[in-house]
């Protein structure tokens, strides 16, 4: 899910429960599923920092590692604490709060503990944010139950507030699950944007994603449910923005661990 708005964002809050990820088999090389929230600090969306959870499969072992990363300064992937061998099922909370008023650095908090500070960013505020899952290496034979990324931004009054639904767009690409397709490239996400009413607007409470284990030919003819494949109702402008975000993500994946 992407949030693009004219209102300034000065920080970000994201919380979600770590899900139990199921991998269909051993991984010959590291497979990483990232649940990441990225905060862009320029309008071109070329500078940013991010945090989230990395669920890694290597061989038959799975680890859960929270992390943060400063893309702007290429300062690398920062592990937060030590990796766990499984999900603790708890909701975990990530926050980025300006180091000071007007600062272009942000303090990163994980479960309310300060875990690091970004390098200097081009701007003390943002108009763009992205949250959700990024998968590498094992698309088909893997699944996880529903996660709910509950994301808010810090406004100019230093209050965390929810995004107006109208300022968000979503994208959830699906694989090829036609009859006869290769199982490794057959996948889908079930997604939804949960909202709450606030005056005349709808505000985003969470970006909900489930990844079921699917096989070719088992669902390909089934039309996506309304509201689940929300990318399909995005307008052209949003499509372009999302495509661009995807490109950024693809590039960024190269510099993760």
């Amino acid at each position: 899910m992407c949030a693009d708005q004219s209102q300034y964002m000065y920080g970000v809050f994201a919380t979600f429960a770590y899900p139990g990820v199921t991998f269909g088999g051993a991984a010959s090389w590291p497979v990483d599923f990232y649940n990441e929230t990225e905060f862009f600090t320029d309008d071109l969306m070329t500078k940013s920092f991010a945090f989230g959870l990395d669920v890694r499969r290597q061989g038959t072992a799975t680890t859960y590692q929270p992390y943060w990363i400063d893309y702007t300064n290429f300062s690398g992937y920062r592990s937060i604490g030590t990796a766990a061998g499984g999900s603790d099922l708890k909701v975990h909370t990530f926050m980025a709060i300006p180091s000071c008023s007007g600062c272009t650095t942000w303090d990163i908090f994980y479960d309310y503990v300060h875990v690091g500070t970004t390098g200097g960013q081009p701007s003390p505020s943002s108009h763009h944010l992205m949250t959700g899952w990024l998968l590498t290496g094992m698309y088909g034979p893997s699944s996880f139950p529903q996660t709910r990324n509950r994301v808010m931004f810090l406004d100019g009054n230093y209050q965390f507030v929810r995004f107006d639904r109208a300022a968000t767009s979503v994208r959830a690409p699906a694989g090829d699950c036609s009859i006869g397709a290769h199982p490794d490239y057959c996948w889908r996400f079930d997604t939804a944007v949960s909202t709450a009413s606030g005056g005349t607007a709808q505000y985003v409470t969470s970006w909900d994603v489930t990844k079921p284990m699917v096989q070719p030919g088992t669902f390909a003819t089934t039309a996506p449910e309304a509201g689940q494949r929300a990318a399909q109702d995005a307008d052209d402008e949003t499509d372009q923005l999302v495509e661009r975000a995807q490109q950024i993500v693809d590039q960024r994946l190269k510099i993760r661990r």
Partner: protein
Amino acid sequence: MTRKLLYSLVATLCLITGTIVPASAASPAAGPITAAAAADLRQDCEAHRNEAAGQRGWARSRFEQCHRQSKYITLYDTNTLEPKGHFEFDLWTLAFAYDGTRRVDYVISVENAKQSQQLNDQWSLLTVTFTGCASRTDLTCTGPQEVEKTIGDWYYQPHIDTISVTSPDTAGAAPFATVGFDASIGIVAEYRDGRTRPLVDSSSQVNRVRFDSAGSALGNGKYKGTVFLDHTPTLVLPLTGAGIDEEARHVDDALHHTERTFPSSLGKNVPGETRPLHRLMDATQRSSNHSASVGICRNIWGDGYAAGGQECDEYPFQSTYEGSATSTNNQPYTWNGSARPINGDHNGAGGTKLANFYGANRILDNDAFYVKVSP
């Protein structure tokens, strides 16, 4: 050297008037008060001389309070209003209340007493009064409540017998059988030559006491006890090492980093550090506070906030009038407080620590206390 010279002078005067001679230190306090306890409180009281000099003195704890006033009293001629001389002395009161007993003891002394040279000792009288007991049927006072001596006699014998005030276990107001008592320690300074105006200060020192029999409602404490109301205790929460790390961090964020807390509101100013909290003992209202806080946890972290052994913690605590419902007329999103999921064990240990604190300090409904997070 100066002190020796003064004593030499006084000793010389003694030969003439038969009055002031240096005396030895006071004898240990009587009753359940140990000499060591009295000496320790006295030493600390000296270190807090400015507070101790006020009318309400200095309360080191809910069970120890002291008053120490250095008096310089000038006496005036009744007709001409010209100064006739002065008295100097230190008026000490060490007060001890007890957890487990409805009793308070007072050790009062007049120390370093002296008068100006031109005053005759036999007419130089200082009376110490202890008032507050008269007409009371809910308490009993034993010991001298008025002691008159010459300045010289005060010098020789600075202490008066310990005054004890007790209250029957069942006396007092419901629901906790509380009895309030204000002890006033006063002085009357006189030069009895028939032409000097006396100085009367009947409440030079005031000591506020409460007896209670709160029983099990108190929490983790004794059935009954006595406290000094001028001490507002402080709950100290260590950030690490006490098994309450997440609880302490939450309180620290609420007090010092409100932007990290929810509900997120403009101008949030959370009490406890500079403004005290006040204990709430009503179970229904406490429950309302917690329900409102759980609503915040659900709203921010979702219905699954408690997964993995988490619990919705709240600060100010549900057991305070500053809680999320009682302080907001059940509008918790306007609350000057914070709710968040924390480790259930830490929350439980924090709750036990709070209950122990309430008990150890005999904190009853609406009693004030502070909160401090220590590094």
